[in-house]
Structure formats: C-alpha cells, structure tokens
C-alpha cells in the first residue's frame, strides 16, 4: 500500500509537469491577444509596448520563459506575476480560494444529503408514484444548465430584482471570516443552484445501484436472517450501493475546488472560477497557468484519495 501511494505520488508530479507544459504550449501556439498591448492601455505607443514586453520577459523564446517559470515555481513556490496588474499569482489564488472552497463544500454537503436521501426513497419504493416523480424531477435537474438555473433563482428570490426578494442576490458574497451570517445567507442561492444537477445525478445513480443491490442474493440472506427491512437497506444494501458514489464524489469535489466558473460568474462570487475566466479573457498567462495547475492539483489528488479510500471500502480491492 505504501509503495503504491509513493508510485502514485510520482505520477502526480509528472502529471502536473505535463499540465503546465501543455498549458504553456497551447497559449503560445493558439492565437491570442498580445498581453503587452493589453497592459499598455488605451493609446499604446510602440516603444511603451516594447518596454512592457521586455519587462514581462515576453521578448524571449517560449522555452526560455517556460524554464524560468518552472524554476521559480519549483524552487520558490512562485507562480509569477499577473501580466495585468503585477500582483503575485500566488497571492491572487490564495485570496480567491476561500470563496471557491465555501461554494464547493456547501454545495457538496447539500447534494450528498439530497441525492442520497432521494435515491434511497426511490429505490425502496420502485415503480411507485413517488419514485417516478422524483426520478422525473431528477432528469429535469440534470438537464437544466446551471447558468440558467442561476438566473432564474436570482430573478425569483434575490433581494434586488427578485419576485420574492428573500435572499441576497449576486455580488453579495462576504468572506466567512468577516461575517459568518452574511457569508451563509449570500451562499444559500449559489449552493442550491450548484447542487441541483449533482443531487439529481447522484439520486438517479444511487437509485440504480441500490435497486440492483437489493436484488442480490446476499440481501435475500440478510432478510432470511430476520433482520428488519431498515437494517437490510441501510446496513447491507447501502454499504454496497454507496461505493460508486464515493468515487464520483471525490472527482466532482476535486473539479469544483478548482473553480465553479459558471456559478461564480452568475452570482459574481470572487472565487477561482471567476479568476480563471477573467485571466483567459485578458490573456493573462501567469494567472491562467496558476489556476490550471491548481485545478489539476485538486483533480489528481482527489483521484488518489478516491483510489486509496476504495481499498478501505471494498475489502476485495488490494493494491500491490
């Protein structure tokens, strides 16, 4: 197990290298705006643009730039400076991370509770009206785009433009450290909107798994022992049916920690997602690199945790 983890960690390092390299190459191969010209302002003169280009190191070949970037990253944990405003990328990322973590963690809690709850109810009452209604609703939830849901939610409930103005709308995010209550209320809508499609997907997945598991021979054995139906479903059934959910949950959470671009944009939450979106718009390579690497970091580690956790969940899995 230890050897397996070490080998996987080596892979993580290699993967992050590959990701940074590919991002760099794509940025230079594909057409994009000239960062120096963007930085120079409304009326740039060639001399100013050239001096900015030199200042940012853009006048050197891409492999020299890449080598310098990686050297700073590895030896000083330095992600460089934003082309746009010269702020260190590390500082930008760490100031944005709490908002993304708040959004992802709250939504994840919500969709796990709702998804698993609905999935169980639908699975133990297959083909009833309740089952069909919840699964039909889930299908709608999966199909509804998150930006559309976000706008509808704002239109219905936000305190400024809503029909029923009961919740703070877009642009109301307050850090947890400043005002926990305002933090909570400002995130209620984003949490719900982000959780909808996940909750819907998880409930359908769990319903499918659990219905299948409840037809297994070992469930018949559990019933033949004289166990209560509650114990049969929750201890014997759910134990098997939840395993694939754990896998997907790890990956989904990993992806979201790297920024929920659409939700953050609709609700104007200053998280990693909006940071990466604005950096792409402004051809701000160091920030793009930073957010991409952060996202990749969360995803590969989520993968690793899921694989290790799996060995504890399923005793038949053993890593050599």
């Amino acid at each position, binding site marked *: 197990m230890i050897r397996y983890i070490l080998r996987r960690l080596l892979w993580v390092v290699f993967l992050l290298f590959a990701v940074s390299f590919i991002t760099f190459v794509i940025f230079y191969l594909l057409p994009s705006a000239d960062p120096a010209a963007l930085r120079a302002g409304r009326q740039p003169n060639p001399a100013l643009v050239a001096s900015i280009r030199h200042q940012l190191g853009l006048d050197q070949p891409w492999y020299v730039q890449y080598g310098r970037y990686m050297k700073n990253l590895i030896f000083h944990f330095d992600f460089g400076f934003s082309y746009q405003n010269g702020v260190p990328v590390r500082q930008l990322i760490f100031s944005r991370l709490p908002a993304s973590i708040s959004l992802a963690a709250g939504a994840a809690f919500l969709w796990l509770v709702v998804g698993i709850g609905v999935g169980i109810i639908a699975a133990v009452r297959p083909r009833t009206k309740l089952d069909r209604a919840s699964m039909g609703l889930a299908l709608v939830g999966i199909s509804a785009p998150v930006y559309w849901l976000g706008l509808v939610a704002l239109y219905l409930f936000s305190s400024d433009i809503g029909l029923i103005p009961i919740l703070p709308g877009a642009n109301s995010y307050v850090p947890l450290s400043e005002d926990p209550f305002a933090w909570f209320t400002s995130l209620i809508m984003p949490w719900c909107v982000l959780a909808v499609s996940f909750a819907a997907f998880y409930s359908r997945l769990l319903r499918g798994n659990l219905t299948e598991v409840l037809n297994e*021979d070992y469930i018949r054995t559990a019933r033949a022992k004289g166990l209560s139906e509650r114990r049969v479903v929750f201890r014997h059934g759910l134990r*098997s049916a939840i395993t694939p959910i754990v896998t997907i949950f790890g990956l989904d959470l990993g992806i979201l920690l790297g920024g929920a671009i659409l939700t953050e944009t609709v609700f104007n939450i200053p998280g990693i997602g909006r940071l990466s979106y604005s950096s792409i718009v402004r051809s701000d390579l160091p920030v793009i690199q930073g957010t991409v690497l952060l996202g990749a970091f969360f995803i590969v580690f989520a993968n690793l945790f899921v694989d290790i956790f799996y060995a504890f969940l399923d005793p038949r899995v053993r890593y050599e």
Partner: protein
Amino acid sequence: MSALLTVNDLKVSFNTEDGVVHAVEGVSYEVEPGKTLGIVGESGSGKTVGTLTIMGLTRAANTQISGQAIFDGEDLLSASEQQMRAIRGDEIAMIFQDPLSSLHPFFTIGAQLVEAIRVHNKVSKAAARTRSAELLTMVGLSDARDRLSSYPHEFSGGMRQRVMIAMALANEPRLLIADEPTTALDVTVQAQILELIAELQAETGTAMIIITHDLGVVAEVADEIAVMYAGRIVEQASAAELFANPQHPYTRGLLASIPRLDRDRSSGLDPIAGRPPSLIAPPSGCAFHPRCPRAFDRCPAELPPLEPAAAGSEHLVACLLSPEERSVKQ
C-alpha cells in the same frame, strides 16, 4: 407424530409485464420434526418460490399468495411481517445455492455470523463471537477464531457453504430450508457438504426441506420426496418407494436421465424431450402432456388430481394413466 410444517394448497403468482406467472399452483405437503423432505424439479418448476413464500420472502405488491403454511400452529402466510422476522433465521433458517453471492462481500464472516445471532438473542458481541467460532468449528473449519476476521472472497466455495450452514444453524432452527445447497460446488465438495448437513441434522434434530434438481442429492438425505412440475406436485412418496417404484412418467424420465454405473454404457441416457413449460400460459390439462411419451387423448383435457397410486397407499401420483398402465416399462 404431528407435523412441524403443514402446507395446504399453496398458490403463488406474480404479475409481470408479460402476464401473470403462475409459479406455484396448489401445493400441499407436511414436514415432520427431524425428518427431511426433498423437493425435486427442473428450474422454473416453482420449488424455490414455494419455500421462499413460506419464509415470507416473496411478499410484494405484484405477488398473489393463497393457501396456508401452518408452522407450529401458526399460519405463516397470514402472519405479520414482524412475526415473520422473529421466525426467520430463528425458527426457520435457509441455506442458499451460491455461497459466494449469498454472503455479503464487504463484511467479515464474523460480523455476518454475529449479526445472525444477535438479531434473535440479547447477547454481547463478545459472546456472539465466541458462539460464532464454535459454529465454524462445528461445520468443520479449523482455526475458527482467526477465520472470523476473514472476508468471504478469501474462502473457497466449500468453505463458504460451510459458513452459510453455520449461519443457518446459529439459532438452532427447528426447520432448515436448503435451496440447491450443493449445485454451485465441485462434485467432491458436494458430497462433503451433504454429509455435513446430514450429520448436523442428526445431531440437532432439526427438520429439513431440501430443494434440488438432482435426484442423486435427495437420494442421500431425504426421507420423503415430492416431485414438482410446472408449479404442482406430480408425485410424492417415501424416498425408498419413489426410487423403487416411480409412477409418474416425469419421475421416470428424471430417473432415466441420470447416468448410472450399473447400466450398459451403449444404452445411453434418455433425456426428457422438449423444454420446461411456460408458467404464464401453461399447457392445458396435465402440464407435462406435451413432453410425455405416454400421453393420450384425455391428457390435454383433464387436470389429473394427486391421488394414492393404489388404494390405501401413501404413494401419491397425479397421472391419468391407470395403475396397470403406469407400471408398464416404456
């Protein structure tokens, strides 16, 4: 001696998308304390559904059940789910066909045994664990204490079935239902498991229903044998009588399709022609008539009742042929 379990005109049918499946169509039998009833039939003859229904394990919105199953003076078919839970695993226990899929893959053997004990007995975990180790020793597993922390996938098929037997016997049931207990096992292991079941049955005095498609299995352990076809019992007699004097053409067919060492090899096997009937639209009259070599004009028209093969005999058979005609060698 009065019977431990009396099944009276048990009928079970399921509504499915293809139509109503008549799995069991009026089955009656008795099991006496300490005795073994063998129920024999092809897959789809209703033998498993019948016993699962007695255990209350087929209850569902799409299932119709009628008849009686009197166990110890109480009708199991009309008992509440709560009453059934108290009986399942305590008074009546089951052993299933495939011991790999019948044990939970994520729980240790010990956890599964302890659970079976503690559902019906208020004992500490430690006491239940000690009892579990005793049970494993009883079914012939060495190092029982250490085995408790193993998972099912770490055991061989035969060992897993021994665990299932230990679990079934955990609360000293008065009736043990073994559903194809040896089918999924290697031939050499089959014999060991049958021997173990017979031994433990003799020790504990529990009654048993053994369900199988294999006449060789019931020959070894059963006192009484019921042969089922398309949801009905077509022949019922003591084991010795049935093998010595089979009456129903279907029973004869089953016997003829078993390889035997004492028969000339060149004579070959006689499989029963055709396939088991559909339980949604079973053949009219005697359900076996389309496959029966002795069928005549009355067979598609009349349903033969299960009657004594001869006046006063305990050997029952459901066949329209006269006793004289039945005994003629084909």
